[in-house]
């Protein structure tokens, strides 16, 4: 639930921001944030949000979610899970069937002018007016969101996104990656506090994806709250502070990324054997050991949260059995593996 403004809480957050900010990114945005009325977290509060389309399809089934100011929140889910519907409702593009959303403490329906002015949206599709120029379209976006012209900010944003040199050319002449960056520039033109990135790196090459991650990190340093939907789990793993998993319109899980990976992650220990094994000795059957790499590797999967991992006794038993190894590595489950198992479990249930 959204709490009334508490100046001290925000002041502390603002001080934290300054401390983390590095020049030249310690910018107008941060300075502007300090002048705003103080608001406590969460920046977005979603309560019992449902959406049923005219066709009868229920895209969202009572979502409750709080997004904290300044965090990067990754919303994961398979196609058709409800990610874009959720974002579209918060931004005002789709009307909710029931429930309530507050942005910065304001209701998105009653106070839509205030909430929308705080939000920037980068949609999945590259929807741009091909005959316009990047400079003109960014000016247009800024005006549309009720902000007075600020050529310096538009210039800074276009430079930040490496589009300044292309500012007067037609958008149709830009590459796909540049168009994607332009969509972000447009969304940042009115200096939003919250930025929605709906599949921001879909279809872009690896280098550009890394650039995009760096940009998101810069924005976070500026204090912008970022909500990200993605199919690339590695993206969420690399950037997000918290992760939400949505499937069939239900929010299955919301968790700190690190805690999630620790709590749900399994670890694999791989032993490189000195001599290949033809089969796993019977005494190890209960441990679920696997042979890999034509018997040259022995793989043990264990739960990091269990009281006993069984590693010590396994190594001792291997020595007793005369099985020697020359190297040992361990690997944590990736977010992708966790995501797949969560979604699969949801589908089965």
């Amino acid at each position, binding site marked *: 639930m959204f709490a009334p403004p508490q100046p001290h809480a925000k002041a502390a957050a603002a001080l934290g921001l300054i401390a983390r900010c590095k020049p030249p990114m310690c910018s107008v945005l941060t300075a502007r944030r300090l002048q705003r009325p103080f608001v406590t977290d969460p920046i977005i509060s979603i309560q019992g949000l449902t959406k049923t389309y005219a066709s009868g399809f229920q895209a969202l089934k009572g979502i409750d979610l709080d997004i904290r100011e300044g965090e990067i929140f990754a919303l994961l889910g398979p196609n058709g899970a409800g990610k874009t519907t959720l974002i579209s409702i918060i931004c005002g593009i789709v009307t909710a069937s029931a429930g309530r959303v507050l942005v910065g403490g304001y209701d998105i329906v009653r106070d839509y002018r205030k909430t929308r002015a705080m939000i920037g949206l980068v949609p999945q599709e590259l929807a741009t007016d091909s005959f316009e120029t990047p400079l003109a379209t960014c000016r247009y*976006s800024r005006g*549309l969101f009720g902000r007075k012209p600020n050529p310096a900010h538009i210039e800074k944003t276009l430079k930040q996104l490496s589009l300044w040199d292309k500012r007067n050319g037609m958008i149709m002449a830009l590459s796909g990656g540049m168009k994607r960056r332009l969509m972000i520039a447009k969304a940042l033109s009115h200096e939003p506090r919250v930025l929605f990135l709906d599949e921001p790196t879909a279809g872009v090459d690896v280098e550009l994806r890394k650039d995009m991650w760096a940009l998101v990190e810069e924005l976070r340093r500026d204090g912008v709250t970022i909500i990200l939907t993605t199919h690339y789990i590695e993206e969420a793993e690399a950037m997000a502070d918290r992760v939400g998993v949505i499937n069939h319109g239900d929010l299955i899980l919301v968790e700190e990324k690190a805690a999630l990976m620790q709590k749900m992650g399994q670890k694999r220990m791989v032993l490189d054997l000195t001599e290949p094994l033809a089969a796993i000795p019977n005494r190890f059957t209960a441990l679920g050991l696997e042979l890999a790499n034509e018997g040259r590797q022995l793989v043990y999967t264990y739960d990091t949260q269990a009281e006993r991992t069984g590693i010590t006794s396994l190594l001792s038993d291997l020595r007793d059995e005369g099985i020697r190894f020359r190297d040992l590595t361990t690997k944590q489950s990736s977010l992708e593996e966790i995501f797949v198992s969560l979604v699969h479990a949801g589908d089965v249930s």
Partner: protein
Amino acid sequence: MNLQGILAIYRYEMARTKRTVLQSVVSPVVSTSLYFVVFGSAIGSRIQEIDGVPYGAFIVPGLLMLTLMMQSLSNASFAIYFPKFIGTIFEMLSAPVSFYEIVIGYVGAAATKSLILGAIILLTAWCFVPLRIEYPVVMLLFLVLTAVTFSLFGFLIGIWADNFEKLQVIPLLVVTPMVFLGGSFYSIDMLPEFWQTVSLFNPVLYLISGFRWSFYGIADVNVWISLGAIALFLGLCLLATWWIFKTGYRIKK
């Protein structure tokens, strides 16, 4: 009120006209001038006068109305349909602008373009035919009311249309015949009595008649009825706009 938002839409649309000046300005001026030459000079030389007005001058108000209506319709309908078609409408829907501000921006720009075009055509007409304007204020009133009303109507068509064919069907198959049969090139007194009665059911007749009255003081119907007709049509368009934005028809899911 989000004045910056309205201005942004307005400027964006006006900039689009500047980019497409050949199609938006030159083309309608040339085609209307052709009407002056063909109907005014070639055919006009045989028809002589109608109600004491040379035929070339008689058709100017009708032709001006024709261009004004068609351009208002196409400017406004395309302006709102194109963002829907290419998907950029998301930005407007997610911006802190009310639906009325969106209408003011789009309709204001479309009406401005039509009025500029009307002024150019009027000046061009002066080159070809002897013109006089007896009631310039009434003429301006008709011009502005028609430009705004038909821009609003065009906006509604743009919202309703979900393909390019629908975008064209009302302007080409409904409005154009109504303009041609609404006394643009003739006085309804010249028609048999039956067709005179039929013509009275054509709303465009009232606009052209009133507009012509502001030029030469001659009209097929009373000028107040003409003003009432355009005011009624404007009211209907406003009502439809209000309903569309209340329900989100073809705009919001």
